[in-house]
């Protein structure tokens, strides 16, 4: 009877969203998030010498990050951190990475119980959905004949200063590989579609993570996208860490 109950759609949804999070992987994820937040919100935008009030705010952010990483009143420190970081999202340079990380911080903080107990899985599901949104939105945006034909990549390499390759002969050179742009463009879009979907299948998670790391390593030799690589790869942890507590079978 118990097995039948678990198989009902309602029970599946309940398990998907409200299963308890495993404490140790959750703590590891929180520490990784604090590090990723420090990287993505690192303040090269602060004028030097910085005014005292800015230094004080940075000091407060640093202390809150450490408290958050240590799990000291996680919900409160996380929400205060999110409120302090929110105005920085629009500072030019790393807006997309900051948007991703701020959403992760907010979801995790809101979904942490006030009492010192392990929380539900739904904040982790939100972070997983963020990964799908990040790759999915970009894959869909690039699914146009112009992009898939390679013209857009050639044009971007000609126009944009953050492109570090010359594609004027329509060949993308990556180490010993020489790939026609008309092949590289649809291949890149296909990889983004795969990464948007594959992590949801447990057996495909590690291959998808390897594919994603290879994709971002290749991408960094074509175009500089700041720390969006870091933010994207950080999100893989929401799938790779054993965050869902295993049920004991009696």
């Amino acid at each position, binding site marked *: 009877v118990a097995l039948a109950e678990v198989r009902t759609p309602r029970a599946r949804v309940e398990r998907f969203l409200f299963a308890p999070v495993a404490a140790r992987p959750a703590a590891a994820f929180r520490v990784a998030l604090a590090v990723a937040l420090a990287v993505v919100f690192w303040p090269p935008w602060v004028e030097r010498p910085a005014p005292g009030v800015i230094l004080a705010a940075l000091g407060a952010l640093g202390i809150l990050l450490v408290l958050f990483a240590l799990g000291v009143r996680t919900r409160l420190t996380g929400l205060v951190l999110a409120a302090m970081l929110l105005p920085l999202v629009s500072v030019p340079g790393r807006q*997309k990475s900051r948007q991703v990380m701020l959403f992760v911080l907010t979801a995790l903080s809101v979904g942490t119980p006030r009492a010192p107990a392990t929380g539900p899985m739904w904040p982790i599901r939100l972070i997983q959905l963020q990964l799908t949104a990040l790759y999915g939105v970009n894959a869909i945006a690039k699914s146009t004949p112009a992009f898939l034909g390679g013209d857009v990549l050639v044009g971007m390499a000609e126009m944009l200063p953050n492109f570090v390759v010359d594609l004027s002969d329509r060949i993308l050179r990556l180490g010993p590989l020489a790939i026609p742009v008309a092949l590289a463009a649809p291949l890149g879009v296909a990889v983004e579609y795969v990464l948007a979907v594959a992590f949801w299948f447990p057996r495909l998670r590690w291959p998808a993570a390897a594919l994603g790391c290879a994709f971002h390593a290749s991408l960094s030799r074509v175009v500089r996208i700041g720390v969006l690589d870091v933010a994207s790869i950080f999100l893989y942890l929401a799938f790779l860490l054993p965050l869902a507590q295993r049920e004991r079978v009696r």
Partner: protein
Amino acid sequence: VRTATGSVRADSVLFAVLVLVLVVSAPWLRVYHSITVVRVEAREIGPGAVARPLPLPAGFRRLGYLGDRPGFLETLAPQFARHTAEQRRAGNVSEGAAVEWTVRWSRDSMRLDQARTFVFEGAARGAR
């Protein structure tokens, strides 16, 4: 069942609100919108309509992201005028010669099938 607020219903509402935030903010994660490919050429038109290419400043070789900005020509024209005047002052343009700037562009393609020419006459400046 484990909850953050103590109530499955309240947790479900929070989850739904954050999903909505995620969906609404997802378009801002786009790294590619469209690209306007622009090429600029400058020529000196001397007596007898003899044309001589003029070297371009680096800023005109890679103009950056002009994606969805329709009025990029209007921002380029004053730069052409300024650069032409500087070249005349520096003596890099022959006395009385006109300077012709040609902008060719296309959006999301390398066809560069649209063009506009700006001519700065030797005596009086103007655009054609």
